[in-house]
């Protein structure tokens, strides 16, 4: 393009320019402190409106008063001073939605954190009403976590809220991440929301997901520990909006909130700085509503709305296993079941450290695939009977042969449920292991050999019953003939100790 053409091009473009007054609303900062800003003026303010301070700093209006607004800052307060102008953006806080987000890491107000530019067409408000009763349909499709202990005894359905609760370092995040990794090729999109975590942890999780190839169907929304309480407060609502954007197109979504305990603490910090009255444990009075309105947005939508679903896995950290504390009891009463992890079990080598007695899934077996339903019926009872018996056996008393065989079988079951990190099982693997357990073939294996034995058995069956495996993983059903074939192959197999 020559010089003449460039100026002609510019002239033409300028001719099409519309001269119009630029309208906006302005307020003035009167007080700044502790991440809370008092603004005077600002006509026609909205509750929850996004406010723009100078220097690219954003905040949210949370206290509407007659002559001004109380706002919380999303970024550092050092750039905001008294007398600064504040612009009202006329939008409540919004989150980006759409396929462009997959594989990306964003912050709760939609800015990219992974260094690449983000261009999104659609935005939806972070606070949205939950689906009404008519807009929902029953939860009857399975969401496979790939973790045998969960899929067999505490099955999760698409559209359910299942809480993962336990002390620190008991494997809560691991269960959530393994569930995300297992959704590869299942058509389920995933959203991981990191609230108040160490940035190094979040980086490690993103690395794990990338190595497992899971980032192509996952969005990460992160508000790490160094960000303002307002940012940490907004993160799960933003993540839920991202999930709703996908569910509205008929997709199934898995969303992990890691973790809601830190979310409640961030909300408490924000409320105390806004001088809202403290209640029990200094939490504000609406801390239940904080979580209930978030988790109610996870649902299984009706056919008319596209048939999509959002499955929520909130994570709560307890102190010393105390399930009766304020926030844990709140969230337990909101969710459709919980997976309770115990440090005792974890340290004695049972990983995932699921306490099957206290864990429950209120949706239960209606969400299980038929093949799994056929083999998992009596597992919880057998496990609880074993645990009762094992207490007596510990005293070294003389045991009769019937009790001994029950103890051996129970020990075998506990060991089968042990699973490595990042090693999800397919439906066929899980069903085959349970059939092997039922046949008694694995009883008598030495404690430290279970991992090797199960691996050998599964690779043998992958070869021998490959047709059955592919069919079962696709359809979720198991015919009598297929069951017999698997049982026959198990009977033929024997463990070669190298």
């Amino acid at each position: 393009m020559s010089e003449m053409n460039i100026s002609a091009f510019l002239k033409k473009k300028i001719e099409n320019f519309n001269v119009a007054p630029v309208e906006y609303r302005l307020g003035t900062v009167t007080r700044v402190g502790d991440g809370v800003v008092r603004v005077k003026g600002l006509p026609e303010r909205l509750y929850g409106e996004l406010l723009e301070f100078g220097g690219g700093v954003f905040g949210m209006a949370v206290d509407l008063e007659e002559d001004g607004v109380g706002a919380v800052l999303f970024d550092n307060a050092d750039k905001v001073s008294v007398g600064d102008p504040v612009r009202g953006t006329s939008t409540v806080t919004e989150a980006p939605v759409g396929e462009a987000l997959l594989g990306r890491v964003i912050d709760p107000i939609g800015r990219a954190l992974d260094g690449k530019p983000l261009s999104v067409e659609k935005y939806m408000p972070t606070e949205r009403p939950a689906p009404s009763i008519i807009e929902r349909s029953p939860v009857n499709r399975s969401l496979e976590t790939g973790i045998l202990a969960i899929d067999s005894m505490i099955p999760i359905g698409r559209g359910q809220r299942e809480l993962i609760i336990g002390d620190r370092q008991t494997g809560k995040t691991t269960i959530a991440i393994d569930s995300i990794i297992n959704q590869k090729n299942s058509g389920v999109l995933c959203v991981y929301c990191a609230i108040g975590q160490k940035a190094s942890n979040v980086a490690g999780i993103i690395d794990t997901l990338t190595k497992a190839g899971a980032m192509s169907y996952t969005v990460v929304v992160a508000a790490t520990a160094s960000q303002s309480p307002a940012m940490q407060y907004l993160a799960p609502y933003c993540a839920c909006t991202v999930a709703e954007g996908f569910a509205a197109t008929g997709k199934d979504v898995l969303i992990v909130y890691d973790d809601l305990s830190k979310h409640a603490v961030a909300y408490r910090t924000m409320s105390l700085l806004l001088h809202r009255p403290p209640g029990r444990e200094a939490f504000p009075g609406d801390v239940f509503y904080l979580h209930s309105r978030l988790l109610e947005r996870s649902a299984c939508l009706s056919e008319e709305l596209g048939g999509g679903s959002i499955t929520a896995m909130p994570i709560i950290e307890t102190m010393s296993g105390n399930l009766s504390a304020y926030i844990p009891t709140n969230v337990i009463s909101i969710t459709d079941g919980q997976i309770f992890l115990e440090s005792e079990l974890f340290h004695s080598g049972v990983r995932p450290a699921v306490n099957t007695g206290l864990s429950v899934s209120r949706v239960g077996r209606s969400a299980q695939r038929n093949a799994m339903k056929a083999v998992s019926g009596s597992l919880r009872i057998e496990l609880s009977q074993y645990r009762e018996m094992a207490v007596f056996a510990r005293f070294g008393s003389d045991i009769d042969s019937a009790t001994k065989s029950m103890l051996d079988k129970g020990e075998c079951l506990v060991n089968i449920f042990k699973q490595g990190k990042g090693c999800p099982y397919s439906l066929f693997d899980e069903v085959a292991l349970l059939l092997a357990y039922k046949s008694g073939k694995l009883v008598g294996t030495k404690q430290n050999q279970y991992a090797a034995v199960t691996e050998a058995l599964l690779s043998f069956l992958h070869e021998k019953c490959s047709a059955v495996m592919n069919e079962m993983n696709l359809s979720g059903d198991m015919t009598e003939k297929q069951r017999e074939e698997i049982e026959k192959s198990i009977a033929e197999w024997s463990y070669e100790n190298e």
Partner: protein
Amino acid sequence: MRKCIITVASNMTEETYNYLVDKVKRQFGFDLVIGKAVDDSIIGGFILNIDGQIFDLSIRTQLDEMKRYLTA
């Protein structure tokens, strides 16, 4: 009693300013208290600030908008 601040550049004549004040009063009601501010950085035109509601018709802002339009 609403407050209105009109910001103009120093190159606006008295006649133009009075005409502007008259128009503003007709548009927004006669109960306005008008204040004048002079700011050369707006280059030309004017900015109306009525109790926080801004109507920006300054040349500086129009140039910014045009820049954004041309580089979009």
